[in-house]
């Protein structure tokens, strides 16, 4: 059984249309590097649902989220939070807003270990130093005493990666972790996430809109449109021959610097119309039972 298995997960605003439509996916730990998402509203919602951090206006309307053999949605809230906290962690999108500007870096990594997981402060600090070294931060002692504004965007993202791995989680959700970064820094950060993931044997759920990034970091991907999975395949199969017309169109819209003629073709209206019709048909069948 996969470490994370989402089955028929539906999420919606309390009033209004669904945001996710019976999404299913699995992420194994270890060698299979996880899954990735592409396009449109809903992709961030999956990660948030797994971590139990959906906004208050959004609720799960059906389905199951199995994490390490337990359906999280059946657990009482406190128990669910404890399990998620012990097993999963997030690498957020924006390293500036994810760090508290008025606290030093050190406590932002160690507090969770001490206060929630019950570590001794000295152990937590030693662990933070080791992790900062592992994410290739020189002078970890100095960085732990620094405030976020004293560090570059790349450094802050490294710190968040270190922080995510701090409690040895079995699952990492990375939500567009490099969109705020420069291409050269993006490459370093992706390399780091891949290395850390391989070394720690963590399952990775990687949310991105960049198919280039997907082809480098992931082994499987799910393409979403309007909260519905339209394609679910291995990265090799997908880039060789995408099966769904919508995913094929997305690939054709992605520019390639090696070939100025390729890419930058907008998704044709006919493809959008077809996939919208699929979504509408899905909603009708869901409404009828």
């Amino acid at each position, binding site marked *: 059984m996969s470490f994370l298995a989402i089955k028929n997960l539906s999420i919606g605003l309390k009033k209004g249309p669904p945001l996710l439509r019976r999404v299913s996916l699995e992420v194994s730990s270890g060698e299979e590097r996880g899954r990735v998402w592409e396009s449109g509203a809903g992709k961030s919602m999956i990660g948030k649902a797994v971590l139990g951090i959906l906004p208050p206006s959004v609720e799960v309307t059906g389905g199951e989220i199995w994490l390490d053999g337990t359906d999280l949605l059946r657990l009482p809230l406190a128990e669910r939070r404890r399990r998620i906290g012990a097993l999963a962690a997030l690498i957020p999108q924006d390293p500036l807003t994810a760090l508290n500007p008025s606290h030093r870096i050190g406590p932002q990594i160690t507090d969770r270990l001490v206060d929630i997981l019950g570590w001794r402060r000295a152990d937590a600090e030693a662990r933070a130093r080791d992790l900062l070294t592992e994410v290739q931060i020189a002078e970890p002692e100095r960085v732990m005493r620094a405030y976020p504004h004293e560090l570059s965007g790349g450094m802050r993202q490294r710190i968040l990666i270190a922080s995510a791995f701090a409690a040895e989680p079995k699952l990492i959700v990375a939500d567009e972790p490099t969109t705020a970064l420069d291409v050269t*820094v993006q490459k370093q950060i992706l390399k780091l996430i891949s290395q850390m993931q391989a070394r720690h044997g963590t399952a990775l759920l990687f949310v991105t809109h960049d198919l280039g990034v997907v*082809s480098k970091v992931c082994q499987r991907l799910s393409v979403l449109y309007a909260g519905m999975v339209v394609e679910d395949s291995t990265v090799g199969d997908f880039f060789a021959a995408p099966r769904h017309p919508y995913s094929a169109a997305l*690939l054709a*819209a992605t520019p390639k610097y090696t070939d100025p003629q390729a890419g*930058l073709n907008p998704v044709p209206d006919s493809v959008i119309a077809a996939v919208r019709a699929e979504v509408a048909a899905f909603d009708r069948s869901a409404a009828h039972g």
Partner: protein
Amino acid sequence: MADLYQIENLRLSLADMAAKPLFGPAPRLEILKGLTFSIPKGSVVGIVGGSGSGKSTLGRALVRLLEPSSGAIRFDGTDITHLSEAELRPMRRRFQMIFQDPMSSLNPRHRVSAIIAEPLRLHGFDAISDRVSRALDHVGLPRHFASRYPHELSGGQRQRVGIARAIALEPDFILADEIVSGLDVSSQAQVLNLLERLVRELGLTLAFISHDLAVIRRLCDQTIVLYRGEIVEDRPTADLFDRPGAAYTRELLEAIPLPDPAQPWF
């Protein structure tokens, strides 16, 4: 072909507020360190570089939102380097800007029609509602969008409103600063195809600032690579991509993940 812009030894420094002592002036930080280049009329110039390379600062100097410390910017033969705001005002119509984030650059309380009409009114145009409609036609938005508010539009549509506002003034030059970085690939493709068409149809000169070399390759005739406030390369785009000269250009190219799992990357 005549040059629309001639830039000579352009230097620009800004106050470094992070290093400002409690009392006394902030130290100056030199952002642009002596740039010399020209932009021919009717061409599309790409400006690339990492964060902190000075590409946005350069863009803002070109449309004189920032005043250079030294050097010269000549726009269509006129030296605009140190013109005062009053002297610039009659010229401003001719160089327009499209911003990165259309949500913060469009007034959320104004309808699309008012957003496009306001600069027209400021510059003393007549037949404003006709011009608004024509601008919407140009960017491929239906005319009834004039009565919508920005929050009712998608990201790509908002960016089109930003483009419509710029071209309504019939400018000679448009500066586009990272205008597609917030869009999904399909909207990105639409906006870029639109820009390509407008440059052709309206005879615009365009400077396109981006960190995405794939986009630059498709759109630009000439590419300027900036690194820490200096030009490391300024060459025709095809040439630059086929034979990148500077180590930094190669590093930028190799950092782009192609949508192809076979490409060795890490």
